[in-house]
């Protein structure tokens, strides 16, 4: 194990952490408003396909990112209309969104499979900072999208905890009827939260096809969307803890192809189960703990709100 392999590992941790954090942060915001969206994997695929497509056409990664976020946000509105406006079951609607997104991305992206990437997010050179040993080659060489993920995380935390809009969003997620009585539009806030979740899942997909593994093929999301859903629980619905979880689970993914290099004789496939098992463990811990104090999960999650049934 030498310095180069370790630095390679850290770079990979940041890359996978970014992928997971963007999507998980979006899902956190949606769930905070009381909407469980199991469509992350499908929104990620739609975003990834769109980003790669626009990148090939324009050669501009920022245009590609913007397009991916808009398309994924619009796509998430299918879940928004079904589950929020019409009050359909969130589990069913979200899963159908994943099936639809994976199908649509594969269908629309069929001609993209053979294309070479024309746009990608490269690492950002921060001048002297990037020359620092270790930190310079890892943290201070992150791609713009990784920086964006960190900034968005801080903004999300500030908005959720320090602003009126954030309070309204959390109120809607805890008790929709109370928020409604206080004059907050439940449907509007939930739709916005779902759209933000979609846009961030789209950004995560863009990171996948423009930075992490430039290119497009069916199945390229490889179940990462489910890890994002897991991370929201693992991070107890808090942007900061979700970031820590993203780096931890990103680290596990980054270790998979490197286990042999480090001389560990365990199948990388078995290692890849850990995020899911850890999430189950955390879920059990949270529910044991919440016997004595209030649950950390948004109380209204999964419950459709229709005013006349209040």
């Amino acid at each position: 194990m030498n310095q180069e392999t370790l630095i390679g590992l850290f770079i990979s941790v940041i890359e996978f952490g970014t992928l997971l954090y963007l999507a998980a942060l979006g899902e956190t915001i949606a769930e905070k408003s009381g909407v469980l969206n199991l469509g992350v994997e499908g929104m990620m695929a739609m975003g990834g396909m769109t980003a790669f497509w626009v990148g090939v056409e324009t050669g501009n990664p920022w245009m590609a990112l913007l397009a991916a976020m808009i398309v994924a946000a619009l796509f998430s509105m299918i879940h928004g209309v079904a589950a929020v406006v019409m009050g359909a079951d969130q589990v069913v609607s979200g899963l159908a969104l994943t099936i639809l997104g994976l199908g649509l991305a594969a269908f629309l992206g069929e001609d993209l499979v053979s294309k070479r990437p024309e746009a990608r997010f490269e690492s950002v050179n921060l001048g002297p900072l990037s020359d620092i040993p270790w930190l310079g080659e890892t943290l201070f060489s992150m791609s713009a999208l990784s920086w964006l993920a960190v900034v968005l995380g801080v903004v999300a935390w500030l908005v959720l905890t320090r602003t009126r809009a954030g309070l309204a969003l959390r109120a809607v997620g805890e008790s929709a009827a109370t928020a409604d009585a206080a004059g907050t539009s439940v449907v509007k806030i939930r739709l916005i939260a779902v759209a933000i979740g979609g846009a961030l899942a789209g950004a995560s997909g863009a990171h996948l096809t423009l930075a992490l593994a430039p290119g497009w093929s069916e199945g390229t999301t490889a179940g990462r969307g489910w890890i994002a859903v897991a991370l929201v629980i693992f991070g107890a619905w808090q942007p900061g803890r979700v970031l820590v979880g993203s780096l931890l689970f990103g680290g596990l993914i980054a270790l998979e192809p490197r286990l042999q290099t480090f001389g560990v004789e365990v199948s990388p496939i078995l290692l890849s189960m850990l995020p899911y098992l850890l999430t189950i463990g955390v879920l059990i811990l949270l529910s044991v703990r919440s016997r004595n104090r209030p649950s950390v999960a948004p109380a209204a999650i999964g419950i459709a709100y229709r005013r006349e049934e209040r």
Partner: protein
Amino acid sequence: MMNMRLVRRDTPLAGGQVRAFVVGLLIALLFGAVLLILSGHSPITVYSKMFDSALGSPRGWSATLTRAVPLGLAGLAVAVAGSMGMWNIGAEGQIIAGAIGGAWIARIAPELPGPVLIPAMLGAAVLGGAFLALGPALARSRLGVNEIITTLMLNEVAIRVVRYLVNGPWKDPEGNNFPIAPELPEQSALPTLFERANVGVLIAAVVVIGFGLWASRSAWGYELKIAGSSEKTAEYVGISMRAKLFTVLVLSGAIAGLAGGIELTGSSSRLVEGVANGYGFTGIIVAALALMRPSGVAAVAVALGAVQIGGEAIQTQGVPSATSNILQALILFGALTAAVFSEYRLVRSAAVPSGAAA
């Protein structure tokens, strides 16, 4: 939209769910046609090819019915859990666990005669599926842990277990380094019924119909109905909610496991990573479209089976296989919309009748 709102109808429109399904199908076909035209295909040619290959011949019907088996059993598994207000999102993983259980029996006792081996493999499949549901069932009934996430997570675990097995300890030494398990013994194949259909179709039909009858006629089924609709009533008449939640979720897993066993012994010659092929997820769509009723599950499973078989047939014409997944998801969204409008109507805010507005 801002000035419109949904108001509950005094009485829901008649024929609700069948109509909703038909509307959903029409919406899906319409959207699908737009996609096909945009990608340079004739929707009429594609749809008629789909219909012909899925339902236009005995051979097509045999393939459709064979596909309806895992979809129907997964749908029943989801519906069984749904009767207690639970979501088993883990049918995909339980199908895999079932297939692993079946393959394990074939590994340790390959010399058994078919009439012994097949039931043993199916039995192990049932146990495998039940085993994967055991953790979520215990966590839900003992600790109140939400089963949606636990079952969902175990899908990903099960996929990796089968990936590990066919890449490692169970890898076929004569498989040209492909990640596949060795071929199953010949006598483990389910007997053929007609054309491509095997006895699995009968087994699934018996299970789905049998469960429907049992749930509607037996005392156990009646208890289930009470427990599923009112926890308080259930406890008042002495039904243990804990026991019910536990049994129902394990039973749900067992049914999905059976689907895995039938896939293995019926449609596949060996254990492969893709044995569940998304059937567990489609099963959720099946159960939702069937409103969690066993009778509906059978009908919807055949309909979606036809969409899938048709979708596989049009690949030869250069149409992506993803088409059938798109159609299935759109049927669900279309039906959800239609179902809402059979219970609600859209009115302008100004015209809200008094009493409906809070």
